[in-house]
């Protein structure tokens, strides 16, 4: 007996969810996180196919096939695949589902986590350091903030994946993660500007070059206008300045 007749225990879900932290443990170019998915979904499959080693083996083999996605959102794939196995969805549909899901899980996760959340947390840590916090506390601030979001995403992804099953596509479209990725963009820019300003202040105050703050602000304003008019080139220039400013700062400190 298996599939839809089996009631999964909370401990099964907890085991599967906690294993998603190791999802990239055997990443390779051939199957990418395929083995990690199989490892994570195994506690669910063992319960679903208890007493049926043939179906268990088949489902594990299916789970081992190539898969890729954002590592945090792979929890959604793990839960949804477990749900499909429990609902006794045919293997061909499960394979199509796996193939389709690896795209959006990567895109949504890359945009929200790598593109917005991680830079924001880095900037918060940097800003707290520049404003006077110790290096240790700034690092702690970064780690706590970043991982609060990280773990929340993993929990949400797993719960929603289990609830939605085959319908995760509709769930992902317009999900809060996507909306927040859009909303966090101005926060990211604001923090970038804040860090740049504080760094500029440090450079000016420590530099022997006679640059007044007003002149520097004026240059910043001209730079901002140019970046607004030519966003692609302006973005590169801003990134260059963000890299070069700390170096100037360090150089200023070293040369006294």
């Amino acid at each position, binding site marked *: 007996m298996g599939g839809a007749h089996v009631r999964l225990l909370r401990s099964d879900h907890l085991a599967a969810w906690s294993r998603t932290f190791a999802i990239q443990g055997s990443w390779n*170019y*051939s*199957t*990418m996180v395929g083995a990690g998915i199989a490892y994570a979904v195994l506690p669910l499959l063992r319960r679903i196919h208890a007493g049926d080693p043939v179906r268990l083996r088949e489902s594990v083999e299916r789970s081992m096939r*190539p898969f*890729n996605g*954002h590592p945090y959102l792979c929890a959604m794939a793990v839960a949804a695949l477990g749900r499909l196995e429990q609902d006794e969805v045919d293997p061909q549909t499960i394979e*199509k*589902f796996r193939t*389709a*899901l*690896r*795209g*959006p*899980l*990567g*895109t*949504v*996760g*890359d*945009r929200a986590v790598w*593109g917005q959340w991680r830079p924001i947390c880095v900037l918060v840590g940097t800003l707290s350091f520049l404003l006077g916090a110790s290096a240790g506390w700034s690092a702690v601030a970064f780690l706590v903030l970043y991982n609060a979001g990280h773990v929340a995403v993993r929990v949400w992804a797993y719960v929603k994946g289990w609830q939605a099953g*085959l*319908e*995760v*596509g*509709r769930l*992902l*479209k*317009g999900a809060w993660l996507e909306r927040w990725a859009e909303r966090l963009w101005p926060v990211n820019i604001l923090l970038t500007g804040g860090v740049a300003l504080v760094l500029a202040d440090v450079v000016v105050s420590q530099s022997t070059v006679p640059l007044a703050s007003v002149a520097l602000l004026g240059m910043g304003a001209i730079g901002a206008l140019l970046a607004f008019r030519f966003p692609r080139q302006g973005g590169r220039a801003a990134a260059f300045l963000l890299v070069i400013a700390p170096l100037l700062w360090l150089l200023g400190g070293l040369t006294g």
Partner: protein
Amino acid sequence: MTLILFRIDERLLHGQVIVGWGMRLGIDYYVVVDDDLSTSDWEQDIYSAGLADRTEVDFVSVADAVERFQEMDSRDGRGALLTRGTAEMRSLAEAGLLSDRRVNLGGLHGTDCRRRVLTYVHLSPADEQDLKAIHLKSNGVTARDLPVGREVGLEDLVDVVE
């Protein structure tokens, strides 16, 4: 001519395409050429879930793509055409649609019958034949996973001279 990227990538709409290429090239719409996907609503929902609201996507069969190519190639904005495998792109090339276009080989991952030629490109004998045919009927085939990545000519992947 608004279709500015022609890419073979079995993952279709994923991070490298949408964020890596799409943001760099300012892509406004995607055309996914795939017979199975063109008739499967739930799969279309999943594939398009990663797109921003303002970005459009059409899922069309190979036959529809050939028939509607001029329309798809003259829309407002910039477009990207994606196929899951080499066979679909070969069909477009042999229909004479890619004569002045360069084809980007983006991601074909390993299977039992494919050999690895790049970390992100694995080719079967059939894939190689398709790519040679596309190469002859287009402005060339090159492999590159991301815009910042190294571009590798088809001649470095397979022997293109028959």
